[in-house]
C-alpha cells in the first residue's frame, strides 16, 4: 500500500496543497510579521520525520517590518540549495510561548523517493519497525540530483 500516492512528503502547514507561489509565501510571512513572529529559513536533504532540527540558513530574522527582507533570504537559500528541502519557520518570542508557531515547506527536490518501512526481528517473534528514507541511501552530494 502506498501511504502517500502523490510522492511528496507532508510536513508542516500547507503540505497537502500544491506548492505555494512566492506571492502566497509573502502573504504568510506578512501574517507572521503582523503577529510579531521572527522568521527563519532552514534547509535539509534528509526529510525524515524525526529529523526535527534542519540546518539554519543565516540567522533568525528579528525586528523585521516587511516580508521583502525574508523573501530576500529565501531566494538566497534557493539559489544555494536548489535541490534541497527548504522550510520557513516563525518563532514566537512571547514569554511562556517561546517556540516555533508556523512552519511550512517552500522548496522541494523535483524527485522525492519517499520512505520505506524496515522490519527488524528481535527476541523471538517480536518485530521492531522503523521508517527509512530512500534518499539517505546515497551520499550527501548525490541525493536528489536527478
Amino acid at each position, binding site marked *: 500500500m502506498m501511504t502517500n500516492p502523490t510522492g511528496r512528503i507532508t510536513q508542516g502547514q500547507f503540505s497537502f*496543497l500544491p506548492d505555494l507561489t512566492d506571492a502566497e509565501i509573502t502573504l504568510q510571512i506578512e*501574517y507572521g510579521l503582523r503577529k510579531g513572529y521572527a522568521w527563519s529559513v532552514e534547509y535539509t536533504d534528509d526529510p525524515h520525520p524525526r529529523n526535527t532540527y534542519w540546518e539554519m540558513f*543565516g*540567522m533568525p530574522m528579528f525586528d523585521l517590518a*516587511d516580508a*521583502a*527582507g525574508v523573501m*530576500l533570504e529565501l531566494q538566497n537559500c534557493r539559489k544555494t540549495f536548489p535541490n534541497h528541502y527548504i522550510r520557513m519557520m516563525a518563532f514566537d518570542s512571547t514569554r511562556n510561548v517561546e517556540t516555533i508557531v508556523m512552519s511550512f515547506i517552500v522548496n522541494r527536490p523535483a524527485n522525492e523517493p519517499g520512505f520505506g518501512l524496515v522490519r527488524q526481528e528481535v527476541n523471538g517473534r517480536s518485530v521492531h519497525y522503523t521508517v527509512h528514507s530512500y534518499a539517505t541511501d546515497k551520499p550527501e552530494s548525490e541525493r536528489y540530483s536527478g
Partner: protein
Amino acid sequence: MPKSMYAIPGAPVPKPETPAGAVAGSARTVGEVLAESQVEAVFEELDRDLVGLAPVKQRIRDIAALLVIDKLRMNLGLAAQAPSLHMSFTGNPGTGKTTVAMRMAQILHRLGYVRKGHLVAVTRDDLVGQYIGHTAPKTKEVLKKAMGGVLFIDEAYYLYRPENERDYGQEAIEILLQVMENQRDDLVVILAGYKDRMDTFFQSNPGLSSRIAHHIDFPDYAVAELLQISERMLQAQHYHFGKGAAEVFERYLNLRVAQPHFANARSVRNALDRARLRQASRLFAERDRVLGADDLSTLTPQDILASRVFQTSNP
C-alpha cells in the same frame, strides 16, 4: 497553474476577471488621487511644523506630484516604472536633515511608495564589521530590517575611509549599491552628511552618486527663522519668552551666527537649554518666594543676557 481551488487564509479575495483594457482604479483627476491619499494633509503638516527649508519642501512636492501622476497613469493602464527615490541630504549641522528624514518615511508611506513607512536610522558602526566576513551579514541584516521603509544613513561619508585600504566600509557600500539597484520598490535609502565631506565621498564613489536621484541641499537658517524655531521649541516644552526676552534672544542669535561652530537649530536648542538652567538657578536663589505657573515658565531677558556670547563680543 490552473486557478486554485482552495483559499489561503489572509489572501485577498480574487476579483472577477475584468475585460481587457478596463481601468483598474477609478480616480481620473489629480484631486481624486489627492483625496484618496491625504497627501495634502502631509503638506500642511510639513509647512506648519518645519520652518524655512523652501528647497526641501519644493522637492518633496515634486516627488509627491510625480507619484500622484504615476497613480493616474496606472489607473489608465499606462505602464509606470517605480521612480528611484534614493536621496542624499547635505547641509551644515543643525539644518534639519535628520528631522526631515524622519518625516520622509511617513510622507512616502502616505503617498503609497513604501509599504510600511518605518525609518531605520544607522551610522557606520551598524553597517561595517570589525573583522573579515563580519561586514556583509551585518549590512544585510540592517537592510532586511529597513525593507518596506526608509534606511537613513547618518554621516554616510564615514563609510569610506580612503586612508585605510583594508577598511571594510567599501564592502558595505558595495552591498548597499546592489540592494539600492535591485530592490528599488522595497527600500528607500537616504544618505546624510555635511556638504563638503559628502562631496568628496561621492567623488570617490561615483556609482553611489549616480544611483541617487535626489541630491537635496539644506540651506542655513536666517536669524528670523531661527527665532521662529526657538519659539516653537519653547512652546513644545511649555516655556515662553518674557517681556523683552525675544528681542534679547534675537541679538544673541545675531552675535552667535558670526561665531565659529554655529550649528543652526542645534545651537538654538543648546542656548535655550542654558537659558533654562539660568532661570532655574535664578528661581532657586529665592527660597521663600511663592512661584506660580507663569514664573516657572517664563524666560526673562536676564536669563539670556548672562550668556558668554554677550561678554566676549563686548569687551
